[in-house]
């Protein structure tokens, strides 16, 4: 989905005065099936591009968020997940790798609330330890994507012309590529598929969209009055970017990034499910679900617990992103 071919988001040299439009936010990953199958993304994350933000955007947003019950609940849950990821040992004293084949697939019972997995390992401990992998990958990948997106998007949006054309073309190519397939090809032959390798592939999945969002913000910000004024006053490019454009321009990027974390977490699970994600003996929800697929009828708990955990975590990020978007949209106030 290349919105550089749409006048609303064109990087064409002859159309400097474009506005960012909602469709810019549509670009959710090109023909990468798994990601397209998993994105509700920033449906209206970029309304803000058309209007000029007030200086206290973030302050206002925060005040509004604080009062929303959904936001509070999902934040608390997220905090809980984070604690679990950092110190799973706080919540269980079982060793997630200790195998006792005689206990294979036993259902939830006293002392083992999630039962046992196929190799007779305590499932509760495994689901807890799996949180770490999902959160780390999700946050790491999106963090890097955001940084890359901000840098490239700013350059493309602010300096326009050649840089814009170059970066936009690269993003186009990226969109045309079925990046998920590319990821599968890549991962299929890597000798080792650890956290870093999988993260590496996933990073390439999301950066064009974020970059475009940033670019749109920068483009509209660049044309605004106060920026023109600052330029006239002799402010350097860097200062203009840092003080005027970035603070508000980042908003749509942050919204989409939040939801992205959920998408990336889901994508890692999908890759593991396809057999090209993390390698054994990693503890990942995706691997657990993959193991469970043939025993859904006989041992449903194998699918249910990691599936629920995964869905819940992703849900948290989606709710968070939604709430952020609502809070950051001045028109909804």
């Amino acid at each position, binding site marked *: 989905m290349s919105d*550089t071919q749409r006048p609303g988001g064109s990087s064409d040299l002859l159309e400097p005065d474009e506005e960012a439009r909602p469709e810019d936010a549509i670009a959710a990953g090109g023909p990468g099936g*798994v990601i397209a199958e998993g994105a509700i993304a920033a449906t209206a994350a970029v309304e803000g591009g058309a209007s000029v933000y007030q200086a206290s955007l973030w302050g206002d947003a925060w005040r509004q968020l604080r009062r929303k019950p959904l936001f509070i609940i999902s934040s608390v849950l997220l905090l809980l997940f984070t604690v679990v990821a950092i110190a799973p040992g706080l919540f269980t004293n079982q060793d997630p790798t200790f195998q006792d084949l005689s206990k294979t697939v036993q259902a939830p019972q006293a002392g083992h609330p999630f039962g046992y997995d196929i190799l007779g390992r305590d499932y509760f401990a495994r689901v807890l330890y799996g949180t770490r992998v999902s959160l780390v990958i999700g946050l790491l990948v999106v963090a890097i994507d955001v940084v890359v997106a901000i840098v490239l998007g700013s350059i493309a949006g602010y300096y326009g012309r050649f840089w814009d054309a170059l970066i936009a073309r690269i993003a186009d190519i990226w969109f045309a*590529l079925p990046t998920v*397939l590319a990821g*599968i090809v890549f991962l299929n032959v890597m000798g080792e598929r650890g956290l870093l390798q999988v993260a590496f592939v996933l990073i390439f999945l999301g950066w064009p969209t974020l970059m475009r969002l940033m670019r749109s913000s920068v483009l509209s910000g660049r044309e605004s009055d106060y920026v023109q004024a600052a330029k006239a006053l002799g402010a350097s490019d860097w200062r203009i970017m840092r003080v005027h454009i970035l603070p508000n321009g980042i908003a749509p990027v942050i919204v989409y990034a939040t939801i992205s974390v959920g998408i990336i977490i889901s994508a890692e699970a999908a890759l593991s499910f*396809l057999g090209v994600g993390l390698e054994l003996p990693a503890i990942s929800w995706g691997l657990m679900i993959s193991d469970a697929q043939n025993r859904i009828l006989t041992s449903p708990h194998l699918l249910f617990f990691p599936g629920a955990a*995964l*869905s819940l975590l992703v*849900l948290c990020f989606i709710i968070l992103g939604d709430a952020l978007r609502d809070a950051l949209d001045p028109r909804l106030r």
Partner: protein
Amino acid sequence: MGRYIARRLLQAIPVFFGATFIVFAMVYAIPGDPIRALNGERPISDSAMQQLHERYNLDDPLLVQYGKYIWGIVHGDFGKTFRGYPVIDIMKEKFPVTFRLALGAFVFEGIVGLFAGILAGLKRGSFMDNLLLISTMFIAAIPVFVLGFLAQIMLGIQFRIFPIAGIYNGWISYVLPSIVLGSLSLVYIARLTRTSLVENMRSDYIRTAEAKGLPRSRVVGRHALRNSLIPVVTYLGVDLGTLMVGAIITEGIFNIPGVGREIFLAIRGQEGAVVVGIVTAGIMIFIVMNLFVDLLYAVLDPRIRYE
């Protein structure tokens, strides 16, 4: 408008070459000898290996291989699998199947998504609206493979409503997988429609129309919808192309012999020609769909026409 189209066409060219070269490089730069794989755990004579390597240009440098490949495509020759089966025939068999699946998903997500989105958008804050928001969140959070298995087991085996595998039962075979495949885009479309509609309903020109005393149906039908649907339509336009190449998981779960499953198996079997062939075709489709959508956009948004 002609200039607009021409420009888009020109921009498409480097995209095509860039994308296809990257795919080609990735596939053929893979370590591991695919000829070796053909023989499984059994030995293969050096002579046979040598002949096959020559036949498939496996010893040429990458750029040369790529060049020969593109040259072949221009003549409609997408190469052969290592068993000697022409890739173009494989594509001719698989693409229509995936197309039918994608079309089914498309129709499903389009109709239901639009319908739900419009309902929700027109009655912002109502029960319908909240229901939509919450249910879409849940559908989006559940991974597609879990969704697929649940559908297969619930509707296919427990209640035997739909066939669960293959495409032997005619069009009914596509129902379940289409629904699963389209479920996430459905969420997207519903929300996009809703948001777009909500936004437009608040805008000045709608307020003017209402103030003028126009009946609601006219206001919505003639003004609000038309503008709200632009982003949705552009998304839909490209989604079809996206669905075509990406339905790997769905095709696997439901045993649909389409392009997605084919690529996955080909990657495993290191059948480079198949992977590159299908992906290249997919890229071409994608670019064409994009151009088409750009055209559509020009039609819908008059500002574009006058460039």
